[in-house]
């Protein structure tokens, strides 16, 4: 009956969001008066999850070197059955959302993504989650027999417990549906999905040749770089950097928007970020209404100064 939680890793290393997820899992287990079982797959850092209050920590060895959604979902289905879990907790990363639908289908489970809090009621289970691209929240009751909660990114503080859990190693069968033929992973740089800070540029930068200004600021902050939709549509930057409603979602601690006026679709995609700073020459830019801090000024003057001062500070 324990709560089953899937902590993601990539190339053996735990993903940053896994610690937040495990903290949520333990709080949920406390609330539901049950225990927590954490599952990892092909993870080499399982020991780091020992302090999250789980009564069981299972590391599965799958004979597939990449994230194969069907294999991962099948493995979790087996464990959910043997643990008789009624609640399964996963993250809202691109991988987790890829796998989550398969998992829900296989278990015939109710599934809610982008959940932002612990359930407000237990019988039945009611969870709050963001909808309409962060323009609203819905309170949804899970009415099935098995429930999957997809926790939104960056919504709660990490907490560890004093007790420690030992790790069990298990093998799992592979059920490969898709074969990876090549992969390109950003190395040594923060990504939009896991960065604490994202620096984003819009049309105000005037051209791709000026992106050095964005990259320099991102470098001193250890930030990921992103862009607005027009910038990716004009081919100044790759699509993978487009953030907003039809691009990548951003839920970071600090989002710095430079030369982005703030179309409603852009703001929707980045609004889950905690602190938003807007730098724009136009004091009427709608983004200032959604921002926490703002500078009305020219990016070409403000950015080098900001980068310089942050560099001097560190």
């Amino acid at each position, binding site marked *: 009956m324990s709560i089953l939680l899937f902590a993601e890793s990539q190339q053996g290393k735990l993903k940053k969001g896994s610690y937040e997820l495990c903290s949520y899992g333990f709080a949920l287990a406390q609330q539901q008066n049950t225990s927590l079982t954490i599952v990892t797959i092909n993870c080499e850092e399982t020991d780091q999850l020992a302090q999250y209050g789980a009564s069981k920590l299972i590391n599965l060895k799958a004979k597939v070197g990449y994230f194969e959604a069907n294999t991962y979902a099948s493995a979790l289905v087996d464990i959910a059955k043997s643990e008789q879990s009624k609640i399964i907790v996963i993250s809202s990363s691109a991988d987790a959302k890829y796998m*989550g*639908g398969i998992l829900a289908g296989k278990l015939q489970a*109710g599934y809610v993504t982008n959940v932002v809090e612990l359930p407000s009621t237990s019988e039945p289970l009611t969870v709050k989650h963001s909808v309409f691209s962060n323009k609203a929240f819905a309170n949804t009751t899970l009415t*099935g027999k098995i429930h999957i909660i997809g926790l939104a990114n960056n919504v709660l503080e990490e907490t560890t417990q004093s007790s420690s859990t030992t790790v069990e190693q298990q093998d799992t069968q592979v059920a490969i549906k898709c074969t990876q033929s090549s992969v390109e992973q950003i190395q040594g740089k923060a990504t939009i*999905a896991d960065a604490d800070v994202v620096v984003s540029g819009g049309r105000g930068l005037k051209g791709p040749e000026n992106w050095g200004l964005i990259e320099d600021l991102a470098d001193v902050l250890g930030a990921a770089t992103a862009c607005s939709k027009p910038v990716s549509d004009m081919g100044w930057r790759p699509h993978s950097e487009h953030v907003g409603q*039809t691009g990548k979602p951003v839920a970071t601690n600090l989002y710095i928007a430079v030369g982005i006026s703030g179309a409603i679709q852009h703001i929707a995609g980045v609004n889950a970020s905690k*602190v938003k700073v807007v730098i724009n020459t136009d004091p009427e830019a709608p983004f200032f*209404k959604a921002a926490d801090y*703002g*500078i009305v000024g020219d990016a070409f003057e403000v950015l080098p100064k900001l980068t310089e001062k942050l560099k001097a500070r560190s």
Partner: protein
Amino acid sequence: MKILVCLSCVPDTTSKINFKDNDKFFDEQGVQFVINPNDEFGLTRAIWLKEKIGATVDVLHVGEASADPTLRKALAIGADKAIRIDTPATDAFVVADQISDFIQSNPYNLIIAGRESIDYNGSMVPGMIAANCDLAFVNNCVKLEIDGSSASCTREMDGGMEVLSADLPLIIGSQKGLVEETDLRIPNMRGIMQARQKPFEVVPAKESSPKTAISSFEKPAPKAAVKLVPADNIDQLIDLLQNEAKVL
């Protein structure tokens, strides 16, 4: 090749979101409904495949008659047949259940559904269909090439891309990148006239019960006004970020 594109109808991306009846329901008044953008990228790719390698493209919607104009638009930009499964789209589980049931008696080589709808942002329907029908599935698909009975798909991951190959039948979660924004088609008069002659089936739904129910909506708390810092006082901004917001 037979392609099925699953379409969701969503409020236009610029819509103001409001609720009614004590915040229990979404207020549709004054809202323009459109094809979910992630589905439209997929539909456009499907029409491109039809023109390049030959295929039939059917579009499918689970929902009520209010979506018919949106389905007609899909016919006007090049789909061959529209199907609407006539039942309220209560939750993702019911939608996936209905589509899966339809596919099992009407097989397709390629099924396309948007990676998420921009209204409820569930991101779960394509994966559920994959599980229900035991299909290979590639989500966040930004590139798709078909070669005979196999497909090569590029998936956008957190912080990278991977190329996956799978055998047909296959389902993909479509998104921007599969086609460019500029590739999206606007119905022309000829297309609109032709759409009137194309088959449009309304089929009864199978029995299916939802697994989730929305009890209420809420809006985010209103935001405090922005704190403006003079452009010549960068130190103040750094100070605020460090000591007030505590994000540096």
